[in-house]
């Protein structure tokens, strides 16, 4: 079991609102990992849309992502790609 931590910046200008949050949950759910996201104040479950929405992460926010599990490297790669995209490029 591996655990990976990385810092990412929310590239999407409108931030992590309902639709991107939904896409993110859909993305990480495919992996056999646990995901947590920290915005410097709170840590939430990355597979919970309510948790992600509660972060209130606007565009440009710095987030710390932690993935843990057998597919941690693949999951982290997907996460990094996700956060680097604008909304129109997202799945």
């Amino acid at each position, binding site marked *: 079991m591996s655990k990976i931590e990385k810092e990412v910046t929310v590239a999407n200008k409108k931030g992590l609102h309902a639709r991107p949050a939904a896409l993110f949950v859909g993305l990480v759910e495919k992996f056999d990992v646990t995901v947590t996201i920290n915005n410097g104040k709170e840590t939430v479950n990355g597979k919970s849309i*309510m948790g992600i929405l509660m972060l209130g992460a606007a565009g440009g926010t710095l987030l710390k992502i932690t993935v843990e599990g057998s597919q941690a490297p693949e999951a982290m790669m997907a996460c990094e790609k996700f956060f680097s995209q604008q909304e129109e490029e997202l799945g």
Partner: protein
Amino acid sequence: MNEIVLKGIPAAPGIAYGPSFILDKGDFIVPKRLIAALEVDSEIARFEEAIHNAQREIHVLKDKIAQNMGPGHAQIFDAHLLVLEDVVLLDQVTCGIRDTKASAEYVFSNVIRKFVEAFTKIPDEYLRERATDVNDISKRVLKYLMDESKLHDLDSLQDDLIIVAHDLSPSDAVSMYNKKIKGFLTDIGGRTSHTAIIAKSLGVPAVVGLKDATLRINNQDDVIIDGEKGLVIINPSVGTKELYMKEQNKITISLRKLDDLKDLPAETLDGKRIALLANLELAGEISTVRKYGGEGVGLYRTEFLYMNRLDLPSEEEQYKAYRQVAEAVAPFAVTIRTLDLGGDKFISSVQIPKDMSPFLGYRAVRFCLERPDIFQIQLRAILRASAHGRISMMYPMISGLAQLRGANAILNQVKATLRDEKIPFDEKMKVDIMVEVPAAVMTAEDLAREADFFSIGTNDLIQYTLAVDRVNEKTAHLYEPAHPGVLKMIQKTIDAAHNEGIPVAVCGEMASDAMLAFLLLGMGIDELSMSPAGMLTIKKMIRSVKLQDAQRTAYEALQLATGQEVEEFVSSQLRQSSGV
């Protein structure tokens, strides 16, 4: 358990002891209901089923929107669906049901509320707005958890409860009349809030403006209400309970003594007769008028006929209600106030856009003049009923002569039609106006020439004169009936009416306060109309004083500079005059 005492604003007198019932109100009334340990699993299953039903509903909606508007627009529903699958949310609800043994709808609405509160703290405005999505989703689920018929009314309540709510709306009031409720506690509101009016007309105590009563009190807590002092005692000790039982006995005995006054006139020691009338909200309440010796109905609030329903009441239905009241109060008279919608009173059948300042907005006669279609039906019903008893009619919120003439023009059209149709009505039916807008006071001389009667609605007149929102608990202390500015308004109204030879009544809460009623008596008021339960106390006061003492007191009180000085002076004069 420790005794806890909360202090609020006393809104209706009396003492009550009983189990509490918390009404949680948002768009939905979600009562806190506890379940048995054995029911936990079935309650969780019920919750899961509600989630499934809500998901199915969203899927249907999503497909429809995708077809009509394209798949992009439907994507928001993917987020809604994810919320309903959210592990954190679902866990919190199932654990909550297990831990607190409360019903699924109560736990669910609390969990949602916490999320929504967290969302509202988000600095980014766009992200913060997601709270609306969550509220929308929660409504879909609650609809399946609660019997829909129970969502908007309180008919499912048991008897003998103390109702604890954030606030009570006038439409809640209707459901309360048929219940044996022991008392009311609310987080917000002042002395003249609807909670106070409801409680007084039911003759039960109420304490309002408690700020966080709904959080501090749990369902089925033992609660004592001291409506005199504005105290609430949660889980009272045996000693406290005994103390209050004794106090309650005393009150019962003095009420029984008051009962002896029922059939005696409200006449001062020096022979001045004052008419004591009742304020009435529902035709079904009419028996209380007689019970407390009322000489008719000074204010029949018709808006309750329009509330808690999806359609407008028909002419026939209104006619029957008005006729019923007129026949029941005979040989006395009833004054029917035309629809006073708006402010804090809303109905489902007519959509009124949300006002920033509802009390200054689209309401009462302003609304009726814009909607003659609705107004005419009511006028026809009132006129037809006038053939069967002593009925007069009253327009609320008249601000000047133009409005009075506008309303009368519609009335005259309706009368003409009735004559054409050979339908009988009282050709001499009196048309009164409510004086509750400062501009009406300033133009009272002109109004008195064209109106048959003035009724001073002190609740609104005080609110408008002092520019104090009576629903806002932060400004509640500024709401001073004895403020010299208010008293001068009232005196001017009375003088203008008497100069034109028309009588004046007061139909606000002021009339049911013995000290203020003594002052009003001295100022020359002819009639006092109030919640039925308050009439005997006022009658006792009137029968124990002399008019000339009241007049002298009023004259001197009007020279005083502050409301507090007025209250102190009038109270001491009343004590001397009545020898109490």
